[in-house]
């Protein structure tokens, strides 16, 4: 039962609290679960948090149709069953799902490309929420936009539900290489990059302009997102890039996600610079979920010790079967969603 406090002296939902929450997850494994029983297994195995969803990504792929926020009743049951944080996925741009998740007491929302996107133009304005958000990214531009929108944590998109780590590796290498290059850009070059990254936000305004043959429309003074004009947005994205260049890394915790299926997969992502790992289908689609879960937890802690990786990888039973990326038609690739 939460303790009573004089609320007037307290500040809630600050940037420090949102980013700080994500920092507490570092060096940990966040596991996808679809019910309370799986959540308890994850907690016992040493998960730092669980991600509540209706189906794991591998099953979403098979089922097809529209994938939405999980049933709130299920989410409540999961929250009641564990003491570790409970996260849940909302569709990209679906701020009403995110509002519902916040009301349920979810600790963090994953605005996720694994679900069917709800808004073709915009992501959620995450600064309107007291709870933090994690978002998937494939590259620096996506990361800069999500940080501008108020995300407190990042993860690679990878290609969820495939058990194939190649896309997560691709996204982390692109991120590292882009940040390395960013540090060498001059102020004006960085501003130009910020302008390029901001262009995505003009899709709606550009459509309306051409739809209405409105030659006078001036994008720079138009309110585009979060009550901000386009010029302000470019400046704020520039500020995000400056912060990244100064820190030589993303200014928030960055996890691996999308295709991690084995302890060695977790270790390679950690060695590439990830702060922790999301495992989606990789645990509850494996032959022995509790054993696989514990092995990946240990692999993340000891990611730089190959003898531990070798030891925990022994006799794990069958990992999930996995999918080759080239067998997935481009329009079915989840990573193409929400850029």
């Amino acid at each position, binding site marked *: 039962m*939460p303790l009573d406090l004089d609320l007037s*002296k307290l500040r809630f939902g600050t940037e420090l609290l949102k980013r700080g929450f994500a920092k507490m997850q570092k*060096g*940990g494994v966040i596991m996808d679960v679809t019910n309370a029983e799986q959540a308890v297994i994850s907690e016992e195995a040493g998960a730092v948090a669980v991600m509540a969803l209706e189906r794991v990504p591998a099953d979403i792929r098979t089922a097809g149709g529209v994938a939405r926020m999980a049933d709130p009743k299920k989410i409540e049951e999961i929250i009641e069953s564990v003491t570790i944080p409970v996260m849940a996925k909302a569709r990209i741009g679906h701020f009403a799902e995110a509002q519902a998740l916040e009301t349920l*007491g979810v600790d963090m929302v994953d605005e996720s490309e694994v679900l069917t996107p709800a808004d073709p133009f915009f992501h959620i304005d995450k600064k309107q929420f007291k709870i933090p958000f994690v978002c998937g990214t494939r590259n620096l531009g996506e990361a800069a936009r999500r940080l501008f929108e108020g995300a407190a944590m990042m993860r690679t998109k990878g290609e969820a539900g495939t058990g194939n780590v190649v896309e997560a590796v691709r996204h982390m290498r692109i991120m590292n290489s882009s940040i390395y290059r960013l540090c060498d850009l001059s102020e004006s070059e960085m501003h130009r990059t910020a302008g390029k990254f901001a262009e995505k936000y003009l899709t709606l305004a550009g459509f309306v302009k051409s739809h209405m043959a409105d030659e006078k429309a001036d994008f720079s003074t138009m309110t585009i997102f979060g009550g901000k004009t386009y010029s302000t947005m470019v400046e704020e994205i520039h500020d995000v890039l400056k912060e990244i260049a100064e820190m030589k890394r993303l200014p928030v915790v960055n996890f691996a996600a999308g295709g991690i299926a084995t302890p060695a997969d977790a270790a390679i992502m950690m060695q590439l610079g990830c702060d922790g790992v999301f495992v989606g289908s990789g645990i509850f689609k494996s032959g022995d979920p509790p054993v696989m879960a514990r092995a990946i937890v*240990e692999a993340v*802690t000891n990611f730089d010790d190959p003898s531990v990786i070798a030891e925990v990888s022994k006799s794990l039973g069958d990992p999930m079967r996995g999918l080759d990326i080239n067998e997935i038609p481009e329009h079915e690739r989840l990573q193409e969603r929400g850029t």
Partner: protein
Amino acid sequence: MKIGVLAVQGAVSEHVEMTNRALRDLGRSGSAAVVRRVDQIEGIDSLIIPGGESTTISRLIDKQGLRDSIVKRGQDGMPIMGTCAGCILMAKAGDEDVERTDTELLSLMDMKVARNAFGGQRESFEAELDTVLFEEPFPGVFIRAPAIAEVWEDCRSLARLDEHVVMAGQAHLLAVAFHPELSGDPRVHRFFLDL
């Protein structure tokens, strides 16, 4: 002076940075180093157990075979500070959440802790804290924080939020329910280095 920061899971680098800053402030030589193996525990002069998830950190302390050496060195007088999840692990007793998850505590301090005492992340907060250690209030960052429900024998309260104890000390041991490593204020770390 070598200050170890337990690095099995959680906000490790933030403690390393804040400890190094506190050392510089005090004009001390030495540095903070991450520790996750038994031989590394033997080479340190004090230890910080960071925030993270207490269930995870407790299990990994056992997996890494660190429990006996941490407890022994703590009993032999090595200063140890636990923050948030680390605060929970310092205690001799925990509430029903600690028991339900079979979280094995280090049982070093005469206190009982309550996990997630103030609620979930939505209820996480920042607050100015009055402490018995400092003249000026300390910026408290509480993230799904525990509270110290009871202290007994030699353990004493060092800070309260309303009537709830949120920092406690016992000789060379320090338990902090909030996150001094995130606050930008090195006073708690400086105090710890003087224990």
